[in-house]
């Protein structure tokens, strides 16, 4: 479990790199931390790893306070850092064994964990090659294997699939999902919004050290982009004219071949809307939710924060 309250970090007594971050990530949950470069994601993760001491506020990771029990925090956390951080003259096998030792695993566990991870990430063949000879994606996978070697209860992953080919990225996402199922608490810092959307239970958007938004994807969409919109598409031009909409539905926009409605309670209102359209002999082809992506939420939030107009 990861909890933080008013977690803040100041540099040089004047610059707040992180300012009042409050998080709560339960076991079996994934939080995606989104933000521009320099927004404070890495500093937040470093405070949660007990690498940087908070200037204000507190954080508890895996049940331990980061300021009071830094060693216990680090022992319980698996970290994938921004840079892979591999020792280029070590083989993949040696590297995992080395970190296994650092995390206090016995030889048998080290061997079995290392074999499992190398095998899972498709690095078995390259296990005895020096990591300096690995491709970018292989290095990233080995770094992720290092973060998992001690089977930590908390995972802090910075760009876990960057530099990976689509198959490898899918493999990593599957592993992250599996870890969520086994009640691990996970934070992912990423610029890959599709990945955040597909993996995260909770999304937080950080800007200049402050959390602007934090919630589930649906909560964020509703908060930023308003109620859900549904679009009726017609086979050909159709003039619906003025017709009475069921209560709870608002006409958002119209074209010659489509109408968009903003609906508060779709389960009640949508059947009535479809009835109203068909009763007017509308050549209805489809009636579906207008997809709103995390990308829109993110860009709109950033635009609002910077005081510019977001053009979808």
């Amino acid at each position, binding site marked *: 479990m990861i909890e933080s309250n008013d977690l803040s970090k100041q*540099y040089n007594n004047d610059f707040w790199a992180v300012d009042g971050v409050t998080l709560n990530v339960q076991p079996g949950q994934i939080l995606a931390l989104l933000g521009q470069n320099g927004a404070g994601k890495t500093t937040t993760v470093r405070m949660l790893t007990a690498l*940087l001491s908070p200037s204000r506020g507190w954080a508890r990771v895996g049940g331990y306070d980061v300021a009071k029990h830094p*060693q*216990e925090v680090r022992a319980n956390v698996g970290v994938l850092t921004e840079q892979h*951080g591999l020792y280029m003259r070590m083989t993949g096998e040696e590297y995992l064994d080395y970190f296994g*030792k*650092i995390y206090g695993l016995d030889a048998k566990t080290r061997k079995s964990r290392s074999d499992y991870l190398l095998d899972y990430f498709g690095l078995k063949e390259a296990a005895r090659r020096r990591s300096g000879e690995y491709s970018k994606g292989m290095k990233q996978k080995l770094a992720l294997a290092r973060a998992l070697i001690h089977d930590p209860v908390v995972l802090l992953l910075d760009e876990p699939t960057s530099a990976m080919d689509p198959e490898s990225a899918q493999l990593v996402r599957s592993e992250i999902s599996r870890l969520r199922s086994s009640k691990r608490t996970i934070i992912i810092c990423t610029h890959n919004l599709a990945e955040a959307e597909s993996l995260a239970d909770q999304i937080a958007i950080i800007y200049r050290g402050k959390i602007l938004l934090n919630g589930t994807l649906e909560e964020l969409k509703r908060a930023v982009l308003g109620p859900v919109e549904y679009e009726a598409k017609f086979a050909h031009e159709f003039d619906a004219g003025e017709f009475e909409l069921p209560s709870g539905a608002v006409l958002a926009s119209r074209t010659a071949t489509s109408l968009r409605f903003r609906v508060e309670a779709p389960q009640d209102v949508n059947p009535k809307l479809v009835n109203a359209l068909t009763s007017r002999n509308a050549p209805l082809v489809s009636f579906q939710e207008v997809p709103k992506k995390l990308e829109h939420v993110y860009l709109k939030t950033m635009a609002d924060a910077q005081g510019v107009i977001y053009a979808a």
Partner: protein
Amino acid sequence: MRRNWNAIWMVAQREFQDQFRDWRIIVPMFIMVALFPFVADNSTRQAINFMNRFGGDLILDRIIPFVILVIGFFPLSFTLIVALESFVGEKERGTIEPLLSSPLDDRHLYLGKLLVGVSTPLLFSYGSIGLYLLLLSRRPIEFPSAYMMTLILLLTFAHAVLMVSAAIVISVQATTIRAANLLASFVVVPVAFLLQGETVLIFWGDEGVLFYAVAGLTILSGLLIRLGLSHFKREYLLGREIDTLNFKTMGRTFLARVTGDAKSIFEWYRLEIPSTLRQLRQPLFIVISLAVLTVAASYAWVVIYTPTYIEITPDRIQDAQKYLSENLGNVDVLSSNIPAPWLFLSNVRATVLFLFAGLISFATLGVTLFMVNMALIGVVLGGASLINFSPTLVFVSAILPHGIFEITAVIIATAAVLKVGAVLVTPQPDKSMGEIFLLSLADWFRVFIGLVVPLLAIAAVIEVYVTPLIIKMAFPYL
């Protein structure tokens, strides 16, 4: 204990592995170890031939230990580069963060790096020395004594620890390898001077003094390790604080510390200076004790040991008294020979020198210089006693009138230097090393400007205009 050692060894083991897999480290080292002893052996052979022709056995006796010292030093200087980049190199390569994110303790990381930094060059140093001794055994020459050999091997060890521990301190504080390499001059230059000093000691041939050099270096190395451990914080290796050098903030911090909360100079003297003196209580006690002990010891040494070197006969005493009366006859016009401002500046320079010596040695060298000055008082009083002058009268008439201000000033300045040294090696988790350094310098400056300078100015005036008159009154027959 065993857990700690295992963790330190874990860090060191990977570094060893890494070093021994890097041909860029190994090849030059092997060349140096394998080649240099042969070159040195050849030079020794030529030196033997030369000395045999002109009869310089004494110089030959001294050359061998000197060559051994140099042979041992070469690999150390080379591997300084490895120690310099121990932390900052990992930072630049991005490998430090996974290591820092692990449950390893700060001490484990630091000592692991130190162990590798010291062991590898020592391995090559001792290997090189061993090879040279092997080559030397074929020559018709007397080996250095076992004691001298032990001293040189210990000196080589102390060099390794000193240089590597200083390099690691730099490595932790530097932001880039380039910066670390540039800062290396802070290690190389003092060590170069040190080596020259040790060379003098070896040619002097006094093994006793060389032993003290080894002891001094060992203490200094220990203090450097303590400094490194005290100020090693993971945060510094990742944080941004050390990336910037803000002179404006530094100046403001320094000035704020010097002035304190005082709003006027009177308030400063009424509140801040006494508070600083209170903080200096412990160092003052140590420095005063050292002063008393040094004066007493040097006085006793002169009184007891001088007669064993020079026979003190009535004729000699008379000669000495005559010499003094001839030379101290014009003491009352001292101001024309030594103006008070010159004396004042000279004393101010000496106290600043104590500080600089103290800064590069965690106060030890500054305190040593102070003790040397105190020893001179004991020597003067002892000498006076040997030529039948009352040491008490000499002290009261020739030293005390200005000494009451001058010695007080020097004692306070030395106590402040001692405090700077102590503060530097004391862990203060809430402050950076730069901050601690700046604040302790400000504390020293506060004492220096507020007390030492005025006291030295008064002392200089008294020494030039008053002391000579008192001497004349106390010793009218001179």
